[in-house]
């Protein structure tokens, strides 16, 4: 069975989804999906081990050889992403049962888990596959389920946010489809590895330029890069809390993965960064994104909005690291993928707990919660510190690498800007601390209890991971560095 791990990774949550429909009882379905997601997580660990020791795994679906059939191609980069996605999914799912109890009507719980699993499937599929068109198919699985999940939010704004996301997501996916079509037209193949072999011959044609533009814009739409981020804040803010936690920690990561995969593996480093002004453009947009989004975050009243904007800012950091096109820069980006998943997962889960108890997530509702929900609020604060990039948290590690990468290239003014951007993070995190610890609760608010264990366990699992990987960086840095190096090795 070991040989089939790559496909099992995707197929287990996929097959679990329709089975859920037959199980009918929500509690059972929850347990079942938890197990499915947990299995996927276990497989991803095994896969990562396998890849780290024995290199790239290629799995030919249907037994057909690569450019003719669809290939699953697991290298260090995918394995790392698979680990992040399935890990976060499992942790988040743990809290799902309690959380959706108050946010989603009872008769839709089963659908919720099905869509959740499908969304997970989609993301895992995008990451695992080595076929460009297959990416599109799984992208649509994850997107369609995402639209439905977001629309499940309590307020009517959720519907509107979901609709906007649907329009933008479809445009993005179709752009990717066009791009894939264009490169297919020039090379006759859809397999990523095969593409990377055949593209250099035709690289200097306008068609390939156009293809690259379509793919990049489509992917950037999905990853909410400034200025294509406008759909994200509302989608995150109005979705059910569990969905927010799951997506914030994984969805944009998968899009960043696609960006890296297309630029580094498919189009190749020399094309991506020399033929096209990607570097300057991304550096500029990344930086503007950091500042615009962080500043917006400061003025949000809704805490979910606040952290959604902070997510956009964090994507800016990843983009800056990516745009350097050096091993250190890419390592920083990959580390930040991992680290940001940990912090945002923890923070949004904690917010879910607050919503569970308080019912509302305006900044004002946090007043005095520092005393009433000490563990939950402490988690948010630690997560916030991690966002800022305080040492002993994961946030520091990735910022450190990013700054090192910038200094290495002599971009130290950018390094200073990055630090200033982090100071903005201090301000918005401080607003939460201030509300939670320094303000008395509103007179008319009733006292609330600490969140139930079903929240605290996953939240603190992630928080402890935040601190653990902030101190013992061996695992994450090693994998990220190896993945970055292999990407450069492939294309050079």
């Amino acid at each position, binding site marked *: 069975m070991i040989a089939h791990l790559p496909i099992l990774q995707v197929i287990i949550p996929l097959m679990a989804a329709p089975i859920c429909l037959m199980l009918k009882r929500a509690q059972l379905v929850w347990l079942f999906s938890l197990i499915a997601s947990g299995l996927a997580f276990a497989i991803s660990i095994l896969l990562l081990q396998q890849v780290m020791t024995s290199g790239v795994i290629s799995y030919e679906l249907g037994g057909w050889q690569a450019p003719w059939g669809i290939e699953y191609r697991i290298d260090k980069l995918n394995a790392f992403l698979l680990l992040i996605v399935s890990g976060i999914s499992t942790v988040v799912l743990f809290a799902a049962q309690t959380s959706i109890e108050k946010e989603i009507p009872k008769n839709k719980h089963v659908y919720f888990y099905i869509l959740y699993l499908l969304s997970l499937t989609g993301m895992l599929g995008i990451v695992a596959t080595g076929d460009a068109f297959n990416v599109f198919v799984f992208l649509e699985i994850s997107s369609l389920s995402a639209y439905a999940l977001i629309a499940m939010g309590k307020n009517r704004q959720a519907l509107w946010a979901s*609709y*906007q996301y649907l*329009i*933008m997501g479809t*445009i*993005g996916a179709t*752009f990717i489809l066009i791009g894939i079509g264009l490169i297919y037209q020039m090379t006759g193949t859809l397999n990523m590895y095969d593409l990377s072999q055949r593209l250099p011959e035709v690289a200097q044609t*306008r068609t390939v*330029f*156009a293809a*690259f*533009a*379509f793919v*990049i*814009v489509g992917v*950037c*739409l999905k990853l909410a890069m400034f*200025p*294509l981020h*406008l*759909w994200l804040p*509302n989608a995150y803010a109005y979705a059910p809390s569990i969905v927010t936690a799951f997506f914030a920690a994984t969805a944009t990561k998968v899009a960043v993965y696609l960006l890296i995969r297309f630029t580094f593996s498919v189009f190749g480093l020399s094309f991506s960064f020399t*033929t*096209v*002004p990607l570097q300057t*453009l991304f550096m500029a947009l990344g930086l503007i994104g950091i500042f615009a989004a962080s*500043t*917006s975050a*400061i*003025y*949000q*009243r809704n805490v979910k*909005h606040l952290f959604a904007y902070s997510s956009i800012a964090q994507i800016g950091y990843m983009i800056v690291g990516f745009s350097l096109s050096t091993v250190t820069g890419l390592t920083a980006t990959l580390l930040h993928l991992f680290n940001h998943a940990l912090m945002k997962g923890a923070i949004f889960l904690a917010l879910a707990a607050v919503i569970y108890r308080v019912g509302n997530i305006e900044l004002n509702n946090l007043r005095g919660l520092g005393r009433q929900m000490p563990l939950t609020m402490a988690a948010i604060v630690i997560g916030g510190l991690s966002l800022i990039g*305080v*040492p*002993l948290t994961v946030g520091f*590690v990735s910022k*450190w*690498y990013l*700054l*090192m990468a910038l*200094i*290495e290239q002599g971009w*130290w003014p950018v*390094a*200073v800007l990055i*630090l200033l951007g982090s*100071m903005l993070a*201090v*301000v918005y995190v401080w*607003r939460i601390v*201030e509300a939670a610890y320094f303000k008395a609760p509103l007179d008319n608010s009733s006292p609330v209890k600490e969140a139930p264990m079903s929240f605290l366990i996953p939240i603190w699992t992630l928080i402890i991971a935040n601190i653990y990987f902030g*101190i013992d*960086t*061996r695992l994450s*840095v090693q994998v990220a560095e190896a993945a970055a190096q292999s990407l450069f090795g492939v294309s050079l």
Partner: protein
Amino acid sequence: MWMIEIPPFFPFFIGTFILLCTRGMLRSAIMILVPIVSALHLSMIPEGIHLQFAFLDYQLTPYRVDKLSIMFGYVFHIAALIGIIYSLHLRDTMQQVAAMLYAGSALGAVFAGDLLTLFVFWELLAFTSVFLIWARRTERSYHAGMRYLIIQVLSGVILLVGTLFYAHENNTLAFGYIGLDSIAGWLILIAFGIKCAFPIAHNWLTDAYPEATATGTVFLSAFTTKVAVYSLARAYPGAEILVYIGAAMTCFPIFFAVIENDLRRVLAYSLINQVGFMVVGIGIGTALAINGAVSHAFNDVIFKGLLFMSMGAVLHMTGRINGSDLGGLYKTMPKTTILCIVGAASISAFPLFSGFVSKSMVMSAALEEGYDWIWLMLLFASAGVFHHAGIKIPYFAFFAHDSGIRANDPPNNMLFAMAIAAALCIAIGIYPQALYSLLPYDTGYNPYDATHVLAQTQLLFFSALAFVWLNLKGLYPPELRSTHLDFDWVYRRAMPNVLQKVFSVIWQIDRTLRDAMKLRLNSYLSYFTRKNDRLSVLLSQNYPSGSMAMWVAVVLAAYLLLSFIK
């Protein structure tokens, strides 16, 4: 032995947790026990690196013991113990927790063997100490604390940038001699300088310390600046620029201290002045000078603590701290008065008091190295210290005209803490060898030779004479009723016209600077805390999906154009 690997900040942090779970007497007992146990633990630790682990691509050493760090380690334990005893009467968890963590962070910083660990504790110092200011729970203190925090964090960020550059240049994070021949060196110096209250960067200190609680200031005065002095001593011994900066630090606060009315602010200025001596010592960089700087830091923690404690006691008992509101307290607070005078004598470097045995080292070193002008400045500063800290403080608070306040001596714990500090001041003054044996270098220096004693006594004598004369003539001390820096007409006659103009310019500049900075910081704060409505609307607006799609088209077009042009 596994115990060796427990760094000294650890007992404090653990103690804080235990403290949170206890109440009343038990809590007090734990608070006293923590520094004592930790000090005993520290006294058994041999020199060397006791904790090390790999982080990123570097080797981190969160716990390194050598002569220099252990010296500060001891004095911080003493300061922590005294401070804790002094604040035993408090029932304020926030202050107790903050104080313990603050002391622990200071210990963490001085035993940090690498820049990253130092940075962590550097920021922790800021974040823990600010609660001692906020603990006063007034609007004013909240804002002062916020300003304090911003500057402290800024210093940390600069330190981090410096560290980054340092790591990039040298491929190590080890915290040792850094020097000034790279950008990293300068950045780190600026970071240290801010915490050390270098001129111009000193405003945070005089701004925030007087706003802290009576007990909080005692802690504040002990740790932050001394950690900075320690860091300077480690990273920049012999950097000549420090000599001049230090000399400036010794002199300029005198002028402000003389006219300041808030007695705790006077002490804050004299704190800068004393730190100046240490900075000069570090800048000179000879064994004797470093010894002097370090030992002066040691003593300063104790006698400045004592002075802040006595003023804290006054504030605690009377609720006032402005010189013009006080006076005549010696009748009802005799013990406090005596203890305060001990502190005053120490800071003024009377022979047989602790200040004398350390300050004279710095001055001797300055002479030995040929810094004659600097020596003169230091001499002037010594006289100045005597004026504002040695005479003005006790005089205004306890003597002067009778303000009619009849407050009793403070609670026993406060008196006891002050007594310990006073005893230490005298003990070190009488038997300096105990202190000298702890010093990093062995110089065989003896303060009690004829020249030193005579010179210092003469200086003090003439200063006292001047004071008495001015006092008899009714010229000094000027009893200013406010912090307003307008020139008093009496003062104008007492000083030559030219000098006065110069001073007025200096004061003016300082005031403008300080006010400008305060204003700027306050405006930033309000800008961020209050919602800037227009921006807020602009930023949190909902965007129609049409415009989102438009952006997509724009980006695509731009991208195509750029790649086709190429």
